[in-house]
């Protein structure tokens, strides 16, 4: 077993363990952190597969941006941990049954022996640009799916604004023109009062 293989197995094991922890950890913040660890370990696997650009994007976008935001949101929402745990325990027997059944099927059907002989992908020289190859594919052969994916992101923006934007009700904004045109007489009232007599 050479170095690449051992790194692959270690990282795969980490992905499985961390992904499992995401599901079973009772504290959502801890769950999000385990998700970060899962992404990191899987990015190593991607880099081993010579998909350097995708591996780095996974770290930059998911770990750096998405999960940080996610952590903020989870910390700000005051989620009650106990009821979550109770429902989880209730479904454990059924879930275990399903997991065992699917796992048995997976092992018997999708084992390496069933995939036949896939040709080894061509090895590339050290100066081979992964990013360039990806860009070429994305803007030629997969231009159509790429555009559709862009539309999906646009829809996501519209949908979330539609659901979250509640209109300008009770917004305490100021109108500069009104403030400039204000007349002292409207704001200050001078009242004449008889002075108090000193006793």
């Amino acid at each position: 077993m050479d170095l690449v293989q051992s790194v692959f197995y270690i990282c795969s094991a980490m992905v499985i363990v961390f992904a499992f922890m995401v599901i079973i950890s009772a504290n959502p913040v801890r769950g999000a952190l385990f998700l970060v660890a899962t992404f990191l370990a899987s990015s190593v696997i991607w880099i081993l597969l010579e998909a350097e650009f995708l591996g780095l994007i996974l770290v930059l976008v998911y770990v750096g941006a998405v999960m940080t935001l996610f952590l903020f949101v989870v910390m700000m929402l005051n989620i009650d941990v106990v009821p979550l745990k109770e429902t989880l325990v209730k479904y454990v027997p059924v879930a275990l049954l399903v997991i065992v059944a699917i796992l048995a099927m997976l092992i018997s059907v999708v084992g390496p022996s069933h995939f036949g002989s896939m040709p080894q992908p061509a090895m590339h020289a050290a100066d081979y640009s992964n990013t360039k190859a990806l860009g070429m594919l994305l803007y030629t052969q997969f231009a159509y799916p790429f555009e559709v994916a862009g539309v999906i992101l646009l829809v996501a923006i519209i949908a979330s604004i539609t659901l979250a934007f509640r209109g300008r009700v009770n917004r305490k904004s100021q109108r500069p023109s009104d403030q400039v045109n204000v007349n002292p007489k409207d704001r200050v009232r001078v009242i004449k009062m008889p002075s108090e007599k000193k006793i």
Partner: protein
Amino acid sequence: MFETPQFSAALPEIFLLGLTCTVLFVDIFMTARTRIITYSLTQLSLIVLFVITLMTFAWDPILTFSGNYIADSFSSLTKLVMIMLTFFVFVYSRSYIKCRNITGGEYYILGLFSLLGMMVMVSSHSFISLYLGTELLSLPLYAMVALRRESALSSEASLKYFVTGAIASGMLLYGLSLLYGATGSLELTAVSEHLVATDKVAIFGMVFVVTGLLFKLGAVPFHMWVPDVYHGAPSTVTAFITGAPKIAALAIMYRLLVQGMPSLMDSWQQLLIVVAILSMFFGNLLAIAQANVKRMFAYSSIAHMGYMLLGVIAATPEGYAAALLYGIVYAVMAVGGFAVISMLSKVGFEAEYLDDFRGLNARHPWLAFILLLCLFSMAGVPPVFGFFAKLGVIEALISVHYVWLAAVALIFAIIGAYYYLRLVKIMYFEEPSKMSKIRPAKDALIAVSINGLALLVFGIFPSQWITLTRTIFGA
């Protein structure tokens, strides 16, 4: 290696995307009073889109965008039907959402995006465009279900829809990745050439793909979300969900199973037989127990999906033609049914219980008649279109010697007729419990009349449609 795509083939999609963005931009400057401009622009663009799709009707298949996009007569016809259905649903929606405090602009824009997703779906010829189309269809629908923001029922429905939809997408993606592993290709023609019937990995992947699709279609045992979503969504959104997306789901089922995996036919046929029988059984039986008409229609939609699958099970060109016709007829009658429900509702009142339909004939005879046509069509009573749809499916089954399955389908159809006719009886032979006036909007009334009468007219003269669908599949 790379060829410049034939953009003219995808003209409907390009046009729709451009117009949707225009509507989106115009809507920014609209206030509540000028919202009618958004609506008019949306409807106008749908009419123009219909004409463009009709003019670019692709009798000869065109495969372009590096095999990601296909334009053939099948995709052109389904697109025309979906555009028409969307147009009608928007007509029903105008008055319905106006008095329900639903922001108009986003409603139409999300609907248009969903239509774009459906068009991408029916024209997809690779796993990736197929998956992206499915997502583009579903994402706006989740938001549309939740548009009635103050309603807890709508939020619950939207969340359930979203979660089950996400699981379905996961299943679909896992299955597609296995199929990619087994064949080494994403493009359907290459996949169908590489697949062999004994490939266990491919069969395993196919099962996951079918599961994902059945989730989207809402067939038993993946139907749990259907009644809750249909019930919780605003009635016109339910009409939208139950119409065109079902045709799109049928279309990708055809593309994936028939065009992509013909060599696995024996496997998916068995799978679908079980699903179809379960759908017809649970759909029809559980519909009887519903006091809520929207839930009743939801269970009836589950049953109808079972009937539609029967055509795919027959696995002959006649069978596919019958399934397509069934999908179209179902969409038209279900949209009509939900339209009547939405028109009986008023501000702060949803007509959804059987009791609200009591003596409808005395309150508004014309609406009662239109609903009667829809219900007769769903039950499969002869003069109406629904009868020929059921007939076609059963005929296709008998011609491939699945007589027992046809017999089972007929028995369930008779059970199903009970609850449709019960609603007819409530409308026509019982005294109304309340006599408040029903004042549907004029445009919606005209649209629903066309919708209902189409079922009757095409029921009397069905040969055009049957010939058209058969020509498409070369039967």
